[in-house]
């Protein structure tokens, strides 16, 4: 009897306090209700079906990338400006830019309550780098001692000192190595994941600001539901209740959904709305430069375009024959920013003052003069073409660029269309191009090095056209061992002056991030990588 009574009292008390609490919530000032509602509200945003299971080191495209960075926290994360802030790392230190000591913060756990330790990183990185695991991001570890492209090999440069400390020995010094570490490939993995990677990729267990809402949260080709991770300890603490990332086949459908109120945040505006979206969305529209560089390459193996005096004259003539301002205005409605270097305005070290930047300005007289000088060496006949893949929406600007070249230089210039990216890539890999080829690069992490080394270094992975210049390679190497950021930046800028002189890649413009958000949300800020900082978004 007594026990029963006690129970009754408890129920009554619980009911009363619940009433009081709910009363409290509705009575208090609007400020706190707003906080209360937005901290549980789900933000809906656009995405695309991840190409691979959600393993951090195998996620190299943006669709999966924005999910992985939401559910994992690495050593550092990036601010909107592309600077790094410590997350799991307490410190990342080195005296010589080659031998690094990483100390972790205590108390971090994965959402299965497993602690985040030095082993969580070392094991994850070893898994990612191992050849037979065939992870698309394995090359991010190729600067760590022990890495091999030919055989399975352990990263001998990684050593666990204790639970919260490990050391990293790089094959060569790299002053801005910590800048890389916010990239998805460097995320830690729990032991539970490493035991069964296949199941893990479907239903990953992370340590980030968000986690999967349930073990069926990822509905393939449709959406993924994320909720906040209550145990998260980093600098990206969400002020909303979670994210629903809906996968869209076309940007047009996503844009219609924002217009129709079915979607809160869209990080890409379709071409068809370039002209109208800023009027329609006002200050809820975003149009700012992003870490995306676009241009076209003119391979040195083409006749008349060798890496000699004639080729150089012709490349500069072609570059100066292109009216970048007009094309970004007319074709892209101001959603591109004409290029002045090979990086991006959101990257520290970007400049429009490089020696040779004048080659990127529209100057028809000079262009004609240079072309005539080249013709004096060896007369040019034939048609100059620019290869592009028709499945990527490139036709309009390629035609505008070739028209600009043809009209200025008085030569034949046309776009050469390949049906798919795969087909175009084939001819690039086999060095069978008959002219230029469109090329683009989206930065993996906010560093000048990432915009230069993979594309123009001799033998680098994405250097399909086989560009090679020892002066450039040397400056890049000097930059990466520089002791201060200023010195490094100076070297990287000097390296770009070599690129401007050779002009194997003709810079065109930087892509902007064009986003819109609905009236239901506030504080939509886009990061350096064109992805909104989701954790900051509030919803009424």
């Amino acid at each position, binding site marked *: 009897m007594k026990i029963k009574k006690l129970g009754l009292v408890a129920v009554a008390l619980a009911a009363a306090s619940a009433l009081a609490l709910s009363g409290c919530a509705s009575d208090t000032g609007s400020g706190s209700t707003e906080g209360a509602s937005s901290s549980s509200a789900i933000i809906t945003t656009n995405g695309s*079906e*991840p*190409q*691979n*299971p959600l393993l951090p080191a195998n996620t*190299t*495209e943006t669709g999966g990338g924005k999910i992985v960075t939401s559910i994992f926290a690495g050593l550092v994360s990036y601010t909107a400006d592309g600077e790094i802030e410590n997350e799991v790392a307490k410190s990342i230190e080195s005296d010589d830019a080659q031998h690094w000591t990483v100390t972790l913060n205590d108390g971090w756990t994965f959402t299965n309550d497993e602690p985040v330790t030095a082993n969580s990183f070392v094991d994850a990185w070893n898994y990612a780098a191992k*050849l*037979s695991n*065939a*992870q*698309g*991001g*394995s*090359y991010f570890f190729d600067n760590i001692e022990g890495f091999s*492209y*030919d055989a399975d090999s352990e990263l001998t440069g990684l050593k666990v000192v204790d639970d919260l400390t490990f050391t990293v020995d790089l094959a060569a010094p790299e002053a801005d190595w910590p800048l890389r570490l916010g990239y998805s490939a460097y995320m830690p993995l729990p032991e539970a994941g490493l035991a069964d990677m*296949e199941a893990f*990729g479907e239903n990953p267990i992370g340590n980030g600001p968000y986690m999967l809402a349930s073990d069926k949260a990822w*509905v*393939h*080709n*449709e*959406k993924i539901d994320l909720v906040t991770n209550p145990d998260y300890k980093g600098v990206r603490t969400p002020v909303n209740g979670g994210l629903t990332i*809906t996968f*869209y*086949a*076309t940007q*047009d*459908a*996503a844009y*219609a*959904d924002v*217009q*129709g*109120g*079915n979607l809160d945040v869209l990080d890409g505006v379709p071409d068809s709305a370039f002209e109208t979206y800023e009027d329609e969305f006002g200050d809820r529209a975003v149009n700012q430069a992003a870490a995306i560089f676009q241009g076209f390459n003119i391979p040195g193996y083409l006749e008349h375009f060798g890496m000699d005096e004639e080729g150089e004259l012709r490349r500069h003539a072609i570059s100066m024959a292109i009216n970048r301002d007009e094309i970004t205005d007319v074709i892209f409605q101001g959603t591109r920013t004409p290029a002045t270097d090979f990086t991006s305005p959101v990257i520290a070290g970007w400049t429009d003052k490089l020696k040779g930047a004048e080659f990127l300005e529209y100057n028809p007289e000079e262009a004609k003069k240079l072309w005539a000088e080249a013709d004096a060496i060896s007369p040019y006949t034939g048609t100059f073409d620019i290869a592009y893949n028709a*499945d990527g929406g490139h036709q309009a600007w390629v035609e505008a660029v070739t028209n600009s070249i043809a009209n200025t230089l008085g030569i034949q210039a046309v776009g050469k269309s*390949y*049906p*798919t*990216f*795969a*087909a*175009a*890539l*084939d001819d690039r*890999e086999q060095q069978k191009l008959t002219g230029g080829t469109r*090329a*683009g*690069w*989206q930065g*993996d992490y906010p560093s000048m090095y990432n915009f230069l080394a*993979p594309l123009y270094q001799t033998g680098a*992975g*994405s250097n399909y056209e086989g560009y090679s210049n020892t002066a450039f390679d040397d400056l890049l190497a000097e930059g990466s061992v520089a002791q201060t950021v200023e010195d490094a930046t100076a070297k990287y800028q000097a390296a770009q002056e070599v690129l401007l002189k050779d002009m194997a890649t003709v810079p065109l413009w930087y892509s902007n991030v064009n986003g819109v958000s609905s009236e239901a949300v506030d504080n939509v800020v886009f990061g350096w990588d064109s992805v909104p900082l989701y954790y900051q978004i509030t919803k009424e």
Partner: protein
Amino acid sequence: MLWYTGRRILQMIPVFFGATFLIYFMVFSLPGDPIAALYGDRPPAPEVIEQIRAQYNLDKPFIVQYLLYIGGLFQGDFGTTYSGRPVSEVMAEAFPITLRLALLALFFEAVAGITIGLIAGLRKGKIFDASALVVSLLLISVPTFVVGFVLQYVFGVQLGWARTTVSGDAPFNELVLPAIVLASVSFAYIVRLTRASVADNLNADFVRTATAKGLSRNRVVRVHVLRNSLVPVVTFLGVDLGALMVGAIVTEGIFNINGVGGTVYRAVQLGEGPTVVSFVAMMVIIFVVANLLVDLLYALLDPRIRYAK
């Protein structure tokens, strides 16, 4: 009749193998290495690409790849997508949605198309007939994607009567607008087809006889005119089911429907042989079955048509 049906079903076997072989060959012949292209401008090490190619049998000659695929089919294995999902799972998700969309569209175009076509045929030359002809001409000449965007904007964005895109489960009520878009072109054809056929039959001898016998106008139209006019319309509808499933690519794109169209489009772009072939083979089967049903329906509509040995 039974024998006829059985023979027709047996005929599907060579059709199936012929179709899969041809499609597999076409996907195989697509230029470029699909695995390298998966990674875009950032290629992993060539060894990594080799490893993945081997995993999907892409390193083997065409005929071996095809036989491995067919061998898998007999064990109920449709292969896997490049993201590692079984194709059978993807098919089980996509087909019901597109089939629902196509059947809904078929229903709209059949009911509305035949009704309007019948009225127009009965009142040939009047104002209703003239407007039906103008509207159907408009629908035929305006591309589907224009109709789609306009209806999406008007009913989804401006009026808010329908969702701008269809949610994942694609329930019937959300599919109404896309089904109307999808049906629009065929609807116009059915109006014209029914109208012409009804107008023809109105002057036929058997209609005059029926009227002379003193049958009510209603009964003459229903039993004698309409039933005879439906033979060409039903043929069209049968063939149209296949066309609707293919045509759904555009509509599914506009309304972000997670169906067959979008999946096949993506798979072709990625060069995912097993996905493309499995999907198209399934579409071939649906197409053939729909045609068989049409042929069987003839006998019901026109008793003079009988299928024997």
